[in-house]
């Protein structure tokens, strides 16, 4: 490990089992075990369920390699389920990796939650001691810093009041003040700033930056709030489905995350890219294209005409397609569905044009995802056969109301309210 490197991960992998772990009761586990040694069928197995399928396992983090240098302020972004929190959990040793390893230099202080271990009955001062000790400080260290902590928390007046009487804002301030004064060389924060007011958020970010710049501390910060990432971080990685898809400067990372990178494309050739793994990959999507468009802007009531070209890798019966739409923050907006629209044999290629009515979607940029699925026979569940990142689109809409539509109102237009007589 190089002298300047404070965190190094190699092939870091975390696997979770899906569904119920064990049966939860000793009796059932013993039954299953007894059946197994007699070579009988497990009485607790659901009928028709195969015992170990790939889909039972889920890689929350998939061989992550990362090096972080001293004094860096690393932002970690990615959509929900990308593995950010898993990564922080592994780093803070709450749980152990399934494979690979982490090496770090010095102490890690992690704030995965605000005020971990705060006890409502104890006073602010007592909680500073308790929380500080939980985060790894000794009593003497805390005593030497308690005045600074109290001052930073802006809770001087209430410091000898039980924290159960605190407002949630004060609670956060106090908790953050403790974390900010830790002596640890590495600070880990998971969206903890999301709760404080704007002024305090700014103060915290400045404090973090100051710690990194003047004392060479290393800060790892996870957030969905791109503004705080911009203000705090000097480097950023983007995670997607447990994999690192980008590592570098903050602005590019944010662009990639928000999907505005592939912003204006009207067609995409899939050559193995932009695909997500699925268990039964019976279809290979080759190309997606907006029909007779030069850009991906759609005006008013204009429908999206989407050409998809795919190849059957097995016999396909009653194929279904779902097109999911996300807004620029990766929150799902809606989905278009067509069921049982196609059957074909192995090796065929097929091309179809789909018409999507997006008139109800409000103005703005959207990302999409194409999911092909079917069921092999009527008794089985639906399974995905191909999942791909789709083309984005921008909706442009003349204002229908005098008061312009705000993004915070949602992403779907409804009919005007009518007066009921």
């Amino acid at each position, binding site marked *: 490990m190089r002298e300047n490197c404070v965190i190094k991960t190699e092939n870091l992998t975390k696997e979770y089992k899906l569904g119920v772990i064990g049966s*939860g009761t000793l*009796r059932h586990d013993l039954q299953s075990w007894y059946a197994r040694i007699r070579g009988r069928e497990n009485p607790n197995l659901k009928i028709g369920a195969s015992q170990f399928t790939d889909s039972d396992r889920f890689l929350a983090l998939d061989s992550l390699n990362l090096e972080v240098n001293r004094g860096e302020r690393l932002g970690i972004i990615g959509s929900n389920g990308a593995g950010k929190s898993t990564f922080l959990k592994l780093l803070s040793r709450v749980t152990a990796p399934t494979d690979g390893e982490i090496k770090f*230099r010095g102490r890690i202080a992690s704030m995965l939650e605000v005020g971990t*271990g705060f006890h409502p009955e104890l006073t602010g001062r007592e909680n500073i001691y*308790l929380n500080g*000790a939980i985060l790894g400080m*000794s009593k003497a260290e805390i005593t030497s810093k308690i005045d600074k902590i109290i001052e930073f928390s802006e809770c001087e007046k209430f410091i000898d009041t039980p924290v159960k009487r605190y407002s949630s804002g004060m609670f956060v301030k106090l908790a953050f003040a403790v974390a900010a004064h830790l002596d640890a*060389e590495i600070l880990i924060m998971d969206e903890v700033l999301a709760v404080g007011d704007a002024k305090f958020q700014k103060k915290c970010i400045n404090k973090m930056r100051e710690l990194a710049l003047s004392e060479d501390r290393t800060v790892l910060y996870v957030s969905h709030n791109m503004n705080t990432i911009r203000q705090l971080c000097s480097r950023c990685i983007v995670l997607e489905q447990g994999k690192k898809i980008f590592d570098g400067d903050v602005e590019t990372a944010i662009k990639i995350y928000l999907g505005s990178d592939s912003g204006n494309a009207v067609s995409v050739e899939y050559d193995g890219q932009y695909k997500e793994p699925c268990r039964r990959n019976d279809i290979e999507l080759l190309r997606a294209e907006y029909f007779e468009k030069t850009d991906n802007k759609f005006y008013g009531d204009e429908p999206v005409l989407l050409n998809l070209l795919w190849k059957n890798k097995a016999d396909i019966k009653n194929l279904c397609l779902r097109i999911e739409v996300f807004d620029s923050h990766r929150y799902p907006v809606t989905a278009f569905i067509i069921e049982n629209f196609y059957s074909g044999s192995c090796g065929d290629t097929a091309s179809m044009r789909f018409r999507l009515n997006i008139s109800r979607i409000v103005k703005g940029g959207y990302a999409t995802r194409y999911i092909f699925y079917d069921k092999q026979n009527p008794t089985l569940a639906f399974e995905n056969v191909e999942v791909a990142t789709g083309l984005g689109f921008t909706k442009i809409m003349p204002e229908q109301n005098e008061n312009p539509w705000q993004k915070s109102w949602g992403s779907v237009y409804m009919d005007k309210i009518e007066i009921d007589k």
Partner: protein
Amino acid sequence: MKNSEITVVNSKRGLFSLNLRELWSYRDLVVLFVKRDLKNVYKQTVLGPVWIIINPFLSSFIFTVIFGMIANISTNGVPQFLFYMSGNILWSYFSSCFNRAGSTFLSNARIFSKVYFPRLVMPLSGILYNSITFLIQFLVFFILTLVYFVSGQNVRPNIFILALPIFMIHTAFLGTGVGLIVSSLTTKYRDLNVLVSFGLSLWMYVTPIVYPVSQVPQNLRAIMLLNPAAPIIEAFRFAFLGSGSIEPMYIIISVLVTAVLLTFGMLVFNQVEKNYIDTV
């Protein structure tokens, strides 16, 4: 001052990779947890910490009535109340150490899922907290013993009372050792909890708490004393009340069993703690 020690985290954890030095560096946290518990147990109760004393008095009183007066079990001439109280306080010390250690993983799941510190901090602070409670109860018991002694009752405290710290450590380690094993198992099998509370009260009745060993038929006595908790209680009573006996051989067996249980408990605990948060 820069700390530049390199820590390695990986999927493997050696069977004996118990990091006691790290545990020592968290000693302040242990003390703070004890303080927190002391401050909080009796919050919003009328009598507050007085409960610590009322508890053994009440149960000793009930024992005196049921086992002493109604069932008429002999106490070898020792004042009944004192006899039951001696067994009672030591057993409740044992069972609370057991319960604290036994519920480590389940009752701390929230905090364990958010922050890392050596998990053994929890059972350790449990031992300390219970020791304080025990010492308070013991003090009352001891004063009572002296009162009986001075008033000429059949009570004979002797030189073995100096072994009190050893009695305490032995009891705490036994309870905690078994508790750690239980804690590691209950993360996966919740129904074990029911079994455990039942087992604990069963255990109390096979331990000479409500009767002296001398009341046990001769042929069962050897088996009875193999119960690692039995020789401690017997020796404790002998030291403070002069009833019963100290059986060196059984005490040695008990010490060995305790050592094995505690070591095993810590090893299992150490294995479970690294991943349990995924399954709890």
